[in-house]
């Protein structure tokens, strides 16, 4: 059972997470797009397990339904038609969803402590209780995966069924897949399977077949076998060389330390000032007012607090009680 002790990275937290458990096996989901028939059983199983029900959509002239990821659809099938140079039409279907990067851009960008965590087995999970709905995770994600729900302004994405995996099971989408297109196991085993499958595809004539496990994000825990690994963009815009936006690095690496330093220096200067000059001496409120009021020839005002002794019999508290120029 994974508990908070197995979290190796936590958003916006400077305390070093535990790192000594070196024998947690990294897990991975392998999606072999050449075997996918686009049945969307994975979409249904995902919603069922995670207690989500997206709105019933409309037909937009394609099989994509819904047409994009939403806060309630954590995975969607993306269908694209591609005509190759020799006039062959290819119908490419890709299961889109979180890639569970080894270096997650969402986690790096997130300013809410504990809203995004990474487990020792590689799963990147969102803890909605801590989410502040700023949307930085979307900016930080090179795959454009998280979605903010208009219902609660919180960010959602695939959890790789971290609750199931913790309990020793496989993700819901993996289990349901009828064509053996989605597989699950340790990252080592999945890479071995992927290599075998790439060999098979090459033997079938797909010379550019390959594994999609992009190094730009440190590798991913959701990998694809693509028949055209030379051009992943063909699969509904899968980025060829995904990288975390430099803005995230600038915010966390430059802006944040500088701003923190400014706050620190200000606080330090305040302490020094207090030590050298002492506390600010303020004249007492009431005597000053009384003094000024009597000097001006007005009626001595009651302080703003209620004071029965100052109350003249029969006179209500109204503007006349207060002298001119004392409208504080």
């Amino acid at each position, binding site marked *: *059972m*994974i*508990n*908070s002790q197995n979290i190796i990275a936590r958003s*916006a937290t400077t305390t070093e997470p535990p790192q000594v458990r070196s024998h947690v096996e990294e897990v991975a989901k392998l999606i072999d797009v050449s075997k996918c028939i686009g*049945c*969307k*059983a994975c*979409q*249904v*199983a995902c*919603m*069922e*397990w995670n207690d989500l*029900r997206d709105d019933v959509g409309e037909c937009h002239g394609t099989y994509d339904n819904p047409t994009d990821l939403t806060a309630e659809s954590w995975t969607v099938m993306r269908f694209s038609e591609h005509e190759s140079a020799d006039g062959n039409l290819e119908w490419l279907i890709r299961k889109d969803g979180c890639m569970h990067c080894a270096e997650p851009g969402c986690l790096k960008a997130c300013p*809410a*402590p*504990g809203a995004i*965590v990474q487990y020792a087995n590689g799963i990147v*999970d969102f*803890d909605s209780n801590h989410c502040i709905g700023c949307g930085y995770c979307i900016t930080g994600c090179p795959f454009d995966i998280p979605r903010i729900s208009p219902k609660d302004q919180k960010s959602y994405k695939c*959890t790789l069924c*971290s*609750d*199931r995996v*913790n*309990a020793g099971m496989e993700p*819901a989408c993996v*289990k*349901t*897949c*009828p064509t053996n297109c989605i597989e699950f196991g340790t990252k080592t085993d999945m890479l071995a399977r992927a290599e075998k499958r790439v060999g098979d595809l090459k033997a079938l004539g797909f010379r550019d077949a390959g594994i999609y496990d992009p190094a730009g994000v440190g590798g991913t825990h959701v990998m694809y076998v693509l028949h055209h690994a030379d051009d992943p963009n063909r699969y509904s815009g899968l980025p060829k060389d995904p990288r975390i936006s430099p803005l995230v690095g600038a915010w966390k690496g430059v802006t944040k330390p500088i701003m923190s330093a400014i706050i620190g220096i200000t606080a330090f200067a305040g302490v020094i000032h207090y030590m050298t000059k002492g506390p600010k001496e*303020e004249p007492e*409120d*009431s005597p000053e007012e009384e003094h000024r009021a009597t000097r001006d020839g007005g009626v001595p005002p009651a*302080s*703003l*607090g*209620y*004071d*029965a002794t100052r109350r003249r019999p029969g006179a209500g508290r109204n503007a006349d009680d207060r002298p001119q120029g004392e409208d*504080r």
Partner: protein
Amino acid sequence: MAINVTRRQFFKLGGAGLASSSLAMMGFAPEPAEASIRQFKLTHAKETRNTCTYCSVGCGILIYSKGDGSKNVEQNVFHIEGDPDHPVSRGSLCPKGAGLLDFVHSKGRLAYPQVREAGSDEWKRISWDEALGRIARHMKDDRDANFVQRNAQGQTVNHWTTTGFLAASGSSNEAGYITHKVVRNLGMVAFDNQARV
């Protein structure tokens, strides 16, 4: 009770309150201890094996319901997934099977026998006993009237051609075998299965 707070003091108090709550907003607050981020929802749920109700592939399913079956508990199905031990599907389910939970709880699901009497435009709820009795009566009457023992050449055929039978595709081998025996023993010829759908 007199509360002597000057305007200045009021602003000081307000400022302190705002500053402390802002600090809490920025994360400088004690964290609640967490056992885990996501709890596994099937722990100790009652698990029941069954066969998917849809097509003739007959995939195995596991039905999970709340409660352990104690007499004071009303069972409620809250999750269904594939049965990894089933030889046909080995845990996988198509999109229809994967969405069986909503089929179970569908408002449009037929949950009891109904009859629409001849000449009526309304469906009337009847008991299972009444439904089975009526079906048996209709079958007996029709079979008595139309059963063919011998054809024109005098050969024994034992045909009953005026009534057909549609069987469920989700049946197990054994249930299918018994259904077949019952139907053919009655002499029924028109016998089909949802497997064709």
